[in-house]
């Protein structure tokens, strides 16, 4: 096997692909990346057996076909450390991959390509295909991913719900305390809503892979897999089996006490008050009266308080909330102003972008002190 490639062409796909490989796996070969020369194409493949990322790079002439695996992290770090304009030549010599570039020469250990687990993603039995602008897909993932549960025994919460209907893609994530939901226009060949649960790691890899561009991208879903291909990178992941809870039940519909506030002002206030909250429970108390929002830290000894001008007409409200959850929501919203909708002192709060209230919905359960 032999190939020559410019560092510039290699680095982008390699960074995406190598990130998938497992640093501390019980299977040694999983910390490697598969390199394959096929015709005029260089293929890079990494997998953790759940998420698989395949990169394709167009090669110039004078290549020799073949395939081998090398340690992903070392290969990536070497390529990263070379000057951008360099050409890189790789040759397989017995069980070593010899890598030359400029005045450098490296010899990397290898493991046979046959040992590398290839996914058997039987994508033929397609369930459905969704098309939407790449940047839009990225933004709905970004808007909801933060609420995915971490190592919950309710394994179906450790992932993001993708709900596809004929003209819409909806993403939903919840850890049982808060929930995020976002919608984006998409076209799909289905009459009814289809649900899939995307594992946490797959969501993070997709967030890295997708670019804020307007061109359409195709998402293929089967019962067991999701595949996204942007031409250069093909991403495949297992789906989480199981049923996502009925999220409709927890998105409030009767929160009609509206509070509108400048997003960055509220964010800055909460960030200051958060410093003196209890480090585990992170509680703040919001005391709301006509056009005024007062935020108090709920700590042990130290106290913080701050008041903000807001738009609010309605009865006084006093509610306890986790400041971390609120800040997560404010970071996920783009607009200048946010709309907080309350029902009373003890019911969940609904937060939305004031200028695009139907794009994302965020539900946060209160705290009791």
């Amino acid at each position: 096997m032999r190939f020559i490639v410019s560092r510039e062409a290699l680095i982008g796909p390699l960074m995406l692909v190598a990130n998938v490989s497992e640093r501390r796996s019980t299977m040694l070969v999983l910390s490697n990346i598969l390199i394959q020369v096929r015709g005029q194409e260089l293929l890079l493949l990494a997998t953790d057996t759940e998420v698989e990322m395949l990169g394709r790079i167009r090669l110039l002439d004078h290549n020799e076909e073949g395939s081998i695996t090398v340690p992903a992290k070392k290969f990536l770090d070497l390529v990263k450390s070379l000057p951008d304009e360099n050409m890189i030549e790789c040759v397989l010599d017995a069980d070593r991959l010899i890598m030359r570039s400029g005045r450098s020469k490296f010899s990397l250990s290898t493991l046979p390509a046959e040992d590398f687990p290839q996914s058997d993603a039987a994508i033929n039995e397609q369930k459905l295909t969704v098309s939407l602008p790449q940047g839009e897909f990225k933004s709905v993932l970004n808007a909801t991913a933060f609420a995915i549960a971490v190592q919950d025994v309710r394994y179906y919460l450790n992932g993001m719900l993708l709900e596809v209907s004929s003209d819409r893609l909806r993403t939903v994530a919840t850890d049982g305390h808060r929930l995020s939901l976002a919608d984006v226009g998409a076209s799909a060949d289905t009459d009814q809503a289809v649900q899939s649960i995307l594992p946490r790691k797959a969501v993070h890899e997709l967030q890295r892979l997708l670019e804020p561009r307007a061109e359409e991208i195709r998402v293929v879903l089967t019962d067991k897999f999701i595949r996204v291909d942007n031409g250069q990178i093909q991403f495949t992941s297992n789906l989480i089996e199981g049923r996502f809870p009925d999220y409709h039940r927890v998105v409030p519909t009767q929160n009609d006490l509206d509070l509108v506030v400048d997003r960055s002002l509220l964010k800055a206030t909460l960030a200051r008050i958060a410093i003196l909250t209890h480090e585990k429970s992170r509680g703040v108390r919001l005391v709301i009266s006509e056009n005024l929002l007062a935020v108090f830290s709920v700590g042990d000894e130290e106290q913080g308080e701050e008041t903000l001008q807001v738009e609010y007409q309605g009865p006084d409200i006093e509610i306890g909330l986790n400041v971390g959850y609120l800040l997560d929501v404010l970071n996920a919203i783009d607009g200048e102003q946010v709309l907080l909708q309350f029902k009373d002192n003890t019911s969940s709060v609904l937060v939305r972008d004031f200028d695009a209230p139907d794009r994302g919905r965020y539900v946060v359960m209160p705290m009791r002190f």
Partner: protein
Amino acid sequence: MRKIIHIDMDCFFAAVEMRDHPQWRNQPLAVGGQASRRGVIATCNYQARAFGVRSAMATAKALQLCPNLLVVPGRMSVYKEVSAQIRAIFANYSQLIEPLSLDEAYLDVTNSQACQGSATLMAEEIRQQIWQQTGLTASAGIAPIKFVAKIASDLNKPNGQFVVLPSQLDDFVAQLPLSKLPGVGRVTAERLRELGLVSCQDLRNFDRLKLSKLFGKQGQILWQRAHAIDDRAIQSNRVRKSIGIETTLNQDIHSPEQVWQQLLILLPGLMQRWQASGERPIQALRLKLKFDDFSLTTVEQRCPQIDESVLKALLPQALERQQGRGIRLVGLQVSLQSQEASSQQLCLPL
């Protein structure tokens, strides 16, 4: 140096039964569950102990050892009454009382004026008053630190006491077998023995760093105890860390459905106990199973409320460890948040 008294009633439940039923006095007697319902022994009298009967032993096993054993059911309300009586006596000697259970407590009498400040005399008086007011005997250990007081109360049992003076403390602890230290059970004792460590003196000669590497935080505590260091203060308002409910089944069960059914039976009880204890914020929900070989397993999930869906998800995790064994006990617990973080995050009704 502090003055700590550890008071321990002598075979408490059994002693109460013998007091109230004089006809049972001269025979092996135990309070506990019936063998036919797979009960266990709670307490037994000295006649029974002579046959090898012990607390927490399965009643069936106890009856094998001692066929004449009379096993009677407990009368918890009576024991609680007696317990309140003895606590009232303690209160005359100190405000710093740490009850460990109905029949056992630590008293810090460092600043008590009674008996010219003599802890030894106070212990005598307390035991005397318990006898006069309840007709029951107690034993006491007197020492400058907690765990030594507890060990000492066992040395002249029943109806006796043992004093470890500050000047004797170091030597007393040095000769103690490590298995007597709190937190050293069968398994830890065996591991220590493999390292050639049997007495506290052995441990004193052992490398502290190595101990820490082998036993972690427990190693540091062992090292301190072996050096007669025990700074734990008397906690007069001991805070509960968890609330639980469990049931030993009449017959082993095997299937997930059967376990789930038992859990659903326990669930309202757990809720009730949690509510009765003041609804302190919950940190985690825990599921406990005991298999037919008596090994225990627990699985837990952080969550702020008693949530059936969490429980449902925990069950398969616990059953992964079943490996074909029958299940003899099913239990549920909530661990409670520490007092400082006494706020509660509410859950979405998913």
